[in-house]
């Protein structure tokens, strides 16, 4: 109903407010922690890279959970502090690795299996962990960024973020040309079509590379 107001940011509303942040982190953590439950029980569904999940797997196979626990917990710690300062909590380091791998590994290493093996309990555990993490960040921000009217260079960071994106298209073409000649040709054709069509060339470069890659496959090694 208030569609006209979406242009200006209402910092009191759920969608933009400081208080909703812990809830946001809670929802994400609940899903990710339950994803680890899926992996533990069904061997599918962990939200992380193969290499990181492998550390948890090492513990599950009877080895030590030490690597996964130390790796995950240290990531989580660093990201909480960094996230509150820069305004973007790194999802990969904090939630996927910290909550999804590190904390389950700690719990499993002390023999506390229930929060991981029981689905409902896994969602609840994740939710609580996320609420705590989001709460800490909101608290840290309260005593730093939010106490003043300074923007702390937000414009500089946004400007840099915007301009760095433009590099992706050319990078994809360069990367495609090193994969194989047909894939390189495909990505150039795709990029040219998108450019003439007045669209960002990154999308065309990927599609062109994949289409040519399907007809002229390369091997990974």
């Amino acid at each position, binding site marked *: 109903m208030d569609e006209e107001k979406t242009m200006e940011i209402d910092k009191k509303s759920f969608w933009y407010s400081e208080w909703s942040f812990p809830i946001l982190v809670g929802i994400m953590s609940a899903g990710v922690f339950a994803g680890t439950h899926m992996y533990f029980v069904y061997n599918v569904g962990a939200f992380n890279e193969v290499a990181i999940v492998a550390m948890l797997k090492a513990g599950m196979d009877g080895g030590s959970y*030490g690597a996964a626990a130390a790796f995950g917990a240290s990531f989580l710690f660093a990201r909480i502090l960094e996230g509150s300062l820069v305004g973007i909590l790194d999802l990969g380091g904090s939630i996927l690795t910290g909550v999804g791998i590190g904390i389950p590994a700690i719990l499993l290493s002390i023999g506390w299996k229930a929060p991981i093996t029981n689905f409902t309990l896994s969602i609840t555990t994740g939710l609580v962990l996320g609420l705590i993490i989001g709460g800490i960040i909101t608290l840290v921000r309260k005593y730093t960024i939010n106490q003043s009217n300074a923007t702390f260079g937000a414009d500089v960071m946004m400007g840099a973020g915007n301009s760095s994106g433009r590099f992706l298209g050319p990078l994809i073409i360069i990367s495609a040309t090193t994969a194989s000649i047909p894939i390189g040709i495909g990505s150039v054709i795709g990029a040219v079509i998108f450019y003439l069509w007045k669209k960002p060339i990154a999308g065309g470069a990927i599609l062109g590379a994949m289409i040519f890659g399907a007809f002229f496959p390369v091997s990974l090694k």
Partner: protein
Amino acid sequence: MTILVILLKSILIGGLVGFAAGMGAARMFNAPTVQALGAFRTLGEMNACEGDPASHFSFGLGFFFNAWASTVGAGAFTQDVTHRVIPNWAASVLLLKDKKVENTVHNPKKMAIAGAIIGIIVVSFLNTTASAIPKSLQVTAVKVLVPAAELLINIVMPIIFWLSAIDAGRRSGLWATIFGGLSAMIMGNAVPGVVLGILIGKGVDELGWVRITKVMFGAVIVLFVLSAFFRGFDIQMIESFKLQVPSFITNMHNVFNIK
């Protein structure tokens, strides 16, 4: 029977993760005044698609094949599901209806709802399809997209942020250089350090060395010291200088190694 249980659980998990990933990503466009959940790489890559639905979709698609292959092979989704597939596909769907990014991609409410739907579909699909995927598509995605994204994140983004910091004033340039270099060594990527440098530099420009900036400066130092310790940077550094690692440092590390 098991497949049905997996499907039902996947729907719930996908909905939760998709909702949060969409909402967190939209809030990134309003950071740091609004605390967001996402990543600088997601921000940079979404900006690269310039609000074009086809570009958002194909960028997500490339990483979807990668995630699919990884799930079929090892049961692991790859971080790309939350960092790239869900945010870009949610953006793509919303942009089909309204081209204005301010109304769609930057709107946490719309992105949360679109993200939840995409999340349900993607997670259910990944968890239930253990069958083979076209191998050639997976290989192309891995050989083309992964190196390009790595170059963007490890080389291009740090440099762009660094140059912006230098152009933004002597103080932000100085701190960005110090923290950026340290962060590249300790954390493996210079972007967090450069951003913290801009934060401190511009904070001091605007407020001076008052309590808030001092607290933040202290927090940054603590962040660097702790990440260095937990990543074993202290031991590596001492060894690289060809010195003996004092036993108390090794002992301290052993305390935190959970067996």
